[in-house]
C-alpha cells in the first residue's frame, strides 16, 4: 500500500513497451484495458487513503526530499488522478471497436503503447511534488499526444498535430524557463521547499518573470483564450478515441498545474495580492466563455462544436479560480470532474457516429435521431449536462460557481455565467434539430445504431453524468476538501 503513489505512474509506463510484444490488436487492447483498470483502482485507493489519513509523501528511491524526488498526494491531486485514470479507462473500452474503422490494424499496437505513455505522463504530472519532474512528465504526455493526434485518418490531422506540437513546445519551454528561474532564486525544485523559500525573494523581478513564464506556459497547454488556437483542429482531426481522451483528461491536468503553481508554489498572496492575477483570469475566462461559445455556434463539424465548447468550459474553470476563494476553487475542481464526464460522453457518442458515417459533419447528422437513437440520446443527455440542467452534473458545477460569485459580491459575473449557458443551448440545439427533424441523407439511409463496443462505454459516462448529478458525495465533497486544504496551507 505504501508504494501506491509511484505504482500508478510506473504501471502504465512499463506496460507501454510491453504492448509492442503483443502483436494482435485485440490482445493489446485487452492488456491495455486491464492496465488502465488497475491504475484506476489504485487511484481510488489513493483517494480513500488521502481522505482518511491526510497527505501522502513518497520518497522516490528512498532519497529524502529536497534532494530526492518526492511524490506528494493530497486531496487535490488524488481527486484529479481519479478523474484522469477513470476517464482514460472508460474511453479505452471503446477503443477497439472505434479503431477498426479509423486505424489500420498494423498501427494499432503503437496506438495503445502511446495511449499508455500519454496516461503515464499525465499521472506523473499529477503525482509528483517536484517542479522539474513536472516538466519531464509533461513532455512524455505531450509527445505521445502529438503522435496520437497525427494518427487521424484525415490528412489534416498531420497539420493539426504539427500546430499543437509548436504551441505545446513553446508552452513546455516557457514552463521550463520558469522552473529554471525559480531554481536560480531558491536552489530547490521541491514544491514544498519552493513554497517556503519563494516568499523571501518574492519582490525580485526574477520571480515575477518566472511566474509569468509558468502561467503563460500552462495557459497554453490548457487552451485558455486567446491561447486556444491549437485546440479545435487537434480535437477535430485526431482519431475519435484520442479526442475523447484528450478532452476528458489533458486540459484537466493543465488546470491542475495552474492551481498547483499559483496556490501551492507561489502562494495565494503572491498570485492574487501582489499580482493582479484574479482580474486577468476573470476577464480572460469570461472572454473565453463567450468567444468560444459563439464560435461553437457557427461550426459545421460537430467535433469542432464540442471542441470550442471545451474552450468555453475551461473559461468557467478559470473564472472559478479567479475569485481566489475556497468556494470558487472548489467549484472549478468540481467542474474538472463534471466536465470530464460530459465531454467524455459526448466525444464517445461522436466516436459512434464516426464509426457508422465516417465523418461528423453537421449535415450528415440528418435523420440520425431515428437511425441511431441511443447515440443521439447520449448526445442529448450529455448536452443537457453541458447546459447545466438540474439532475445532471453540469447543474452542480453551475450552482456552486454562481454561489461562489455571489458570495464574493460579483453579481454581474454570476449573471454572465448563466448567460453563457444560453449560448450552450444554441449550439447544442443545432445538433439536435438536424438529428431529429431532418429526413436522412440519401447515402445514409442504411445507417444503423453504433456497435455495442462504443455504445456501452458511452452510456457508462452518460449515466455517470446523471448519477453524480444526484449523488454528489464524491465530486462535491472531495473537491471542497481539496480546496479547503489549499487555503489552509496558504491563508
Amino acid at each position, binding site marked *: 500500500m505504501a508504494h501506491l503513489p509511484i505504482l500508478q505512474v510506473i504501471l502504465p509506463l512499463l506496460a507501454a513497451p510491453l504492448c509492442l510484444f503483443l502483436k494482435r490488436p485485440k490482445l493489446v487492447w485487452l492488456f491495455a484495458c486491464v492496465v488502465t483498470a488497475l491504475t484506476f483502482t489504485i487511484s481510488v485507493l489513493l483517494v480513500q487513503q488521502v481522505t482518511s489519513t491526510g497527505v501522502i509523501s513518497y520518497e522516490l528511491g528512498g532519497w529524502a526530499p529536497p534532494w530526492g524526488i518526492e511524490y506528494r498526494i493530497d486531496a487535490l491531486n488524488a481527486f484529479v488522478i481519479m478523474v484522469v485514470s477513470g476517464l482514460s479507462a472508460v474511453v479505452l473500452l471503446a477503443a477497439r471497436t472505434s479503431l477498426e474503422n479509423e486505424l489500420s490494424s498494423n498501427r494499432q499496437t503503437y496506438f495503445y503503447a502511446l495511449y499508455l505513455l500519454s496516461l503515464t505522463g499525465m499521472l506523473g504530472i499529477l503525482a509528483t511534488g517536484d517542479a522539474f519532474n513536472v516538466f519531464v512528465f509533461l513532455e512524455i504526455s505531450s509527445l505521445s499526444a502529438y503522435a496520437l493526434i497525427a494518427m487521424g485518418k484525415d490528412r489534416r490531422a498531420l497539420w493539426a498535430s504539427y500546430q499543437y506540437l509548436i504551441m505545446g513546445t513553446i508552452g513546455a519551454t516557457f514552463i521550463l524557463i520558469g522552473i529554471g528561474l525559480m531554481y536560480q532564486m531558491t536552489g530547490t525544485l521541491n514544491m514544498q521547499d519552493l513554497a517556503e523559500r519563494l516568499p523571501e525573494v518574492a519582490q525580485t523581478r526574477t520571480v515575477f518573470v518566472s511566474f509569468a513564464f509558468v502561467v503563460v506556459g500552462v495557459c497554453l497547454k490548457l487552451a485558455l483564450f486567446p491561447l486556444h488556437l491549437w485546440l479545435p483542429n487537434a480535437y477535430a482531426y485526431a482519431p475519435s478515441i484520442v479526442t475523447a481522451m484528450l478532452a476528458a483528461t489533458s486540459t484537466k491536468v493543465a488546470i491542475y498545474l495552474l492551481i498547483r503553481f499559483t496556490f501551492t508554489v507561489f502562494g495565494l498572496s503572491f498570485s492574487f495580492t501582489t499580482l493582479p492575477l484574479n482580474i486577468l483570469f476573470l476577464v480572460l475566462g469570461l472572454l473565453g466563455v463567450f468567444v468560444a461559445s459563439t464560435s461553437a455556434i457557427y461550426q459545421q463539424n460537430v467535433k469542432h462544436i464540442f471542441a470550442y465548447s471545451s474552450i468555453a468550459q475551461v473559461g468557467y474553470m478559470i473564472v472559478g479560480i479567479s475569485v481566489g476563494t475556497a468556494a470558487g476553487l472548489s467549484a472549478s475542481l468540481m467542474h474538472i470532474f463534471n466536465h470530464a464526464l460530459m465531454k467524455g460522453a459526448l466525444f464517445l457518442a461522436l466516436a459512434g457516429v464516426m464509426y457508422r458515417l465516417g465523418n461528423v459533419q453537421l449535415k450528415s447528422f440528418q435523420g440520425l435521431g431515428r437511425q441511431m437513437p441511443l447515440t443521439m440520446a447520449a448526445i442529448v443527455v450529455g448536452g*443537457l449536462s453541458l*447546459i*447545466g*440542467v*438540474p*439532475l445532471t452534473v453540469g447543474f*452542480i458545477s*453551475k*450552482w456552486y460557481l*454562481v*454561489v461562489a460569485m*455571489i*458570495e464574493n459580491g460579483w453579481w454581474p459575473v*454570476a*449573471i454572465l455565467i*448563466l*448567460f453563457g*449557458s*444560453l449560448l450552450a*443551448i444554441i449550439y447544442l*440545439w443545432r445538433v439536435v*434539430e438536424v438529428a431529429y*427533424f431532418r429526413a436522412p441523407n440519401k447515402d445514409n439511409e442504411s445507417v444503423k445504431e453504433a456497435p455495442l463496443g462504443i455504445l456501452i462505454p458511452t452510456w457508462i459516462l452518460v449515466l455517470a453524468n446523471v448519477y453524480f*448529478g*444526484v*449523488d*454528489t458525495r464524491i465530486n*462535491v465533497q472531495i473537491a471542497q476538501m481539496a480546496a479547503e486544504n489549499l487555503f489552509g496551507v496558504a491563508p
Partner: protein
Amino acid sequence: MNLSLETLLQLSIALPFFAVIAIVATGRKPNLREGVSIGTGLLLFYCVVMLYNGLKQGADIQVQWLEIIPGLGINFRIEPLGMLFALIASFLWIITTVYAIGYMRKHNEVKQTRFYSFFAIAISAVMGVAFAADLFTLFIFYEVLTLSTYPLVTHAGTDKAKAGGRVYLGILLSTSILFFLMAIISTWMVAGSLAFTAGGVFAGDVNLVLAGAILMLFVFGIGKAAIMPFHRWLPAAMVAPTPVSALLHAVAVVKAGVFSIMKVCVFIFGIDLLAILPSTQFLLYLAGITVLLSSLIAMRQDNLKARLAYSTISQLGYITIGALLATSAGVIGGSMHIAMHAFGKITLFFCAGAILVTAGKSKISEMQGLGWQMPVTMIAFFIASLSIIGVPPGGGTWSKWFLLMGTMETQQWALMVILMISSLLNIAYLLPIPLRGFFPKDSIDRSAITVNEAPLPSLMALSLTTVACVVLFVYPQPLYELVQAILNTPGVANGQ
C-alpha cells in the same frame, strides 16, 4: 387498497412516468396503448383524490427523495394550493386523453406513441411541480416540463413546427436559467432556505430593494406565466396538435407558471412582505398591461388557436395580479381562476380542435354558420366563453369577483378599470365566434346543412368540461374551501 398517503404522493409522480414504458411497449396496438394512458390517468386521479381526502382530514403529507447538495434536495409536501393544481391537472389529463383518441386518429397524426409518451412525462412533471416542497424541487420539475413538452410542440416536424419549437424552448429555457435560477440562488444566499414556508422565508429586516429585485427575477424567470415581454412562446406553441394546446398550453404548462408565481408570492415572500416591496407595484402594472395588450392582440387574430393563445396570456395576467395584490381576496381570486380558466379554456381548445378535424377550418372568418353543422361544439364554445368572460352561468364569475374585490381592497383603481375593460374585450373577441356560428352575416340555407360533429370521444370530452364550467358556477363550495385553506395555514395571512 391500504396505501399510506406518503406512498400515494410518490405514486402520483411515478405512475405517469412509468406508464411511458407500457405505452411504448404497446405502441403497435393503438387501442391497448390508449387504454394504458386512460388507465394510468384514472389511477392517478384516484391517488390524488385520496390525497385530497387525507389533506382535508388534516394530515401533513411529506416525502424526501434525495439530498443533492447539503440543504438542497428533492422534497415533496402537499398543501392546498398544490392540491388544487394536481386535482385539475390529473382530472383533465383523463378527459384530454379521451379527446385525443378521437382527434389524433381522425387527423391521421403520425408518431402517436411518442405523443402519448411525452404527454405522460409532462403530467409526471406537473405533479412534481404541484407537490414540490421547496423552490429547488419546483425548479427541477419546471425544467422537466419544458423539455418534455418540446417534442409535443414540434410534433408535426415541419419547418413551422421547428421554428415554433425554437421560440418555445428558447424563451422558456433562457428565462428559467437566466432569471429563475438566479432568483433561486439569490434567495438561497439571502434567506438561507428554499423551503415553502407559511409567511415566507425572508427575515423581517431583509433589504427591501434586494428582495424587490429578487421578486422581479422570479416574475420574469417564471416564463411559463407569460408576463410580457416573455409571452411569445405561447402563441409559438400553438403549432402543436390541439390536445397539446388544450391540456398543456391552457392548463398544465401555463398553470405551472402562475402556480409557481403564486407559490413564490405566498410561501417565499409572504403576503406581508410582498405588500411593501418596491417592485410589487411595478409588476402589478406590468401584469395589467399584459392583460390589456394581449386582449387587444387577441381581437386581431383570425386564427382561432392564436386568438385563444393571446386570450390565455391575458387570463394568466389576472392570476399574476391576484398573487401580487398581496391580499386574501387576491390570493383566493387568483387561485380560483387557476381552476376556472383551466376548465373554460380547455373547452375552447377542444372546440377549436373539433372544428379543425371535422370541418377542416382554423380561421374564424370561415366559421360563419358552422353552428348548424356542429351545434354541440358551438354551444359548448358559447358556455365556456361565458366562463372566461366571467358572467353566469360560468364558473369564472366567482374568480373574477374575488379579483375585483382584491383590487378594491387595495385601492388599485387603475387595475380595477383594466380588469373590467379586459372583460369587455373578452366579450368582443370570444362571443362573436359562436354567435356568427349560428347567425351568419349572409343568410344561409339551413336545410342543406347536415349535422356533422366531431368524433364521439372528442365530443364527450368537450361536453364534460362544459358541464364542469357550469357546475363550478352552481357549486363552487369545495373549490372555495380548498382555496380558503391556503389562507388558513398559520402564518400566511397574519397581517390582514
